[in-house]
C-alpha cells in the first residue's frame, strides 16, 4: 500500500473518529478502499482496529503529542513485524521453487530437449536380397542458442545395448552427486 493510499485510509479513519455516528458510511468507505487497492477486507479491519486503539487511548489518558507519536511508532513497528512475518512465511514456502527456477536459468550447452526413436528390420537392399537385421534410429532434438536442431543417428543392436549400459552408469554417477 503506497503512502498516498495510506494517507487516504487515515483520512477515512479520522473522519469516522470525528463523526462516530456515521458507522455505515465508515464501513462502506473501508470496503471501497479494500476493493480499490485489492486488499482483503478481513485483515484490513483488524489493522484498522489496532490503529483506532491509539487515538482512543490517547484521549482516555490525555496523552501529549510526543506520547501519541511514540504510541503510533510502536503500532507501526508491530504492523511491520506482522508484514515481515507474512512475507517470510511466503518465502519459506516458495523458495524451493524459486531456487529451482534460478538453476533452470543457468547456462546449458547444446541441451538435449527431446528424443524420438524407431526401430525396425532391414528387409533387403541393392546389395543383399534378404537382410533381416534390426536397426535403431534415434532423433535427438538439441537446443542450440535459441534454435533447435534435429540430429538423426542410426545404431546397431550391440551399440544400443552398450549405449544403454553407459547411460545407466551416468545415472548412477549423477545420483551419487545429488
Amino acid at each position: 500500500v503506497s503512502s498516498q493510499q495510506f494517507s487516504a485510509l487515515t483520512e477515512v479513519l479520522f473522519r469516522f473518529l470525528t463523526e462516530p455516528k456515521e458507522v455505515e458510511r465508515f464501513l462502506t468507505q473501508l470496503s471501497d478502499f479494500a476493493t480499490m487497492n485489492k486488499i482483503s477486507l478481513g485483515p484490513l479491519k483488524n489493522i484498522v482496529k489496532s490503529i483506532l486503539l491509539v487515538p482512543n487511548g490517547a484521549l482516555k489518558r490525555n496523552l501529549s503529542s510526543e506520547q501519541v507519536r511514540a504510541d503510533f511508532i510502536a503500532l507501526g513497528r508491530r504492523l511491520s513485524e506482522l508484514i515481515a512475518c507474512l512475507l517470510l512465511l511466503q518465502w519459506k514456502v516458495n523458495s524451493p521453487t524459486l531456487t529451482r527456477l534460478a538453476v533452470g536459468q543457468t547456462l546449458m550447452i547444446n541441451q538435449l530437449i527431446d528424443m524420438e526413436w524407431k526401430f525396425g528390420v532391414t528387409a533387403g537392399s541393392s546389395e543383399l536380397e534378404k537382410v533381416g537385421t534390426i536397426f535403431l534410429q534415434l532423433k535427438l532434438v538439441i537446443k542450440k542458442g535459441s534454435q533447435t536442431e534435429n540430429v538423426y543417428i542410426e545404431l546397431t543392436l550391440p551399440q544400443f545395448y552398450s549405449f544403454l549400459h553407459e547411460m545407466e552408469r551416468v545415472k548412477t554417477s549423477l545420483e551419487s552427486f545429488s
Partner: protein
Amino acid sequence: MAAVRDGEFAALQSLLKAPSRDAVRQLCQECFSSPPAGLGPLAQRACPGFAAGPEEAEQLVSALHNLTRHVVYRGLTSAEEILSLFPENFHQNLKNLLTKIILENVSAWRNEAQASQISLPRLVDMDWRVDIKTSSDSISRMAVPTCLLQLKIQEDVALCGNSPVVSALTVELSKETLDTMLEGLGRIRDQLSAVANK
C-alpha cells in the same frame, strides 16, 4: 543383382591365364569390393598380371564383379548353389577354384555389404563426463550435477567413399532429461526382447 550372363562366363575364362591361384583370389576380392565406377582402373591394373588386353581385362573384371555380387545378393551359401550358376561347358577346374574362393569369402563379403549399405548417419563412438555446476550468473552457490555426452557420428558411408566424415556432437543432459531418456531406452529394450522372444 541380375544373374550373370553367358557372355560374362566366357570372359571369366581369361582367368586361366592367371599366374597363380592367389592372383585369382586377390582379383576376386578386389572385384567384389570395388564399386562399379572403380572397375575401369582395376581392369587397367589387372592387364599385365593376366596377359590380357584392355578390353579383355575390362570384361573379366566386370564379369567377376557381377558374379561375386550376385552370390552375395542371393545369399548363396553352399557349393552346389554356386556351382549351378556356371554353364555346362565351363572349365571344370576353374569352376571349382572360383567356387572355393567365393565360399571362403562370402560371409566376409556379406558383412562388407551390410556395413556399406545406405543408412542415416551412424553412431561410431560415445564418451561422457559428469560435471558439478557450482555457480552461475543466476545463482551464486549450488551443487548441481550435469552430464556432458559426446557422440561421434559418421555420415553415410556410401556418400563419403574412402574418407568418411566423422563429426563430434556434445550434448548436455540434466538429471531429469537423463531419467526420461533412460525410460525411453528401457522401453526400446523391452520391445526388442518382446520381438526377439516371438
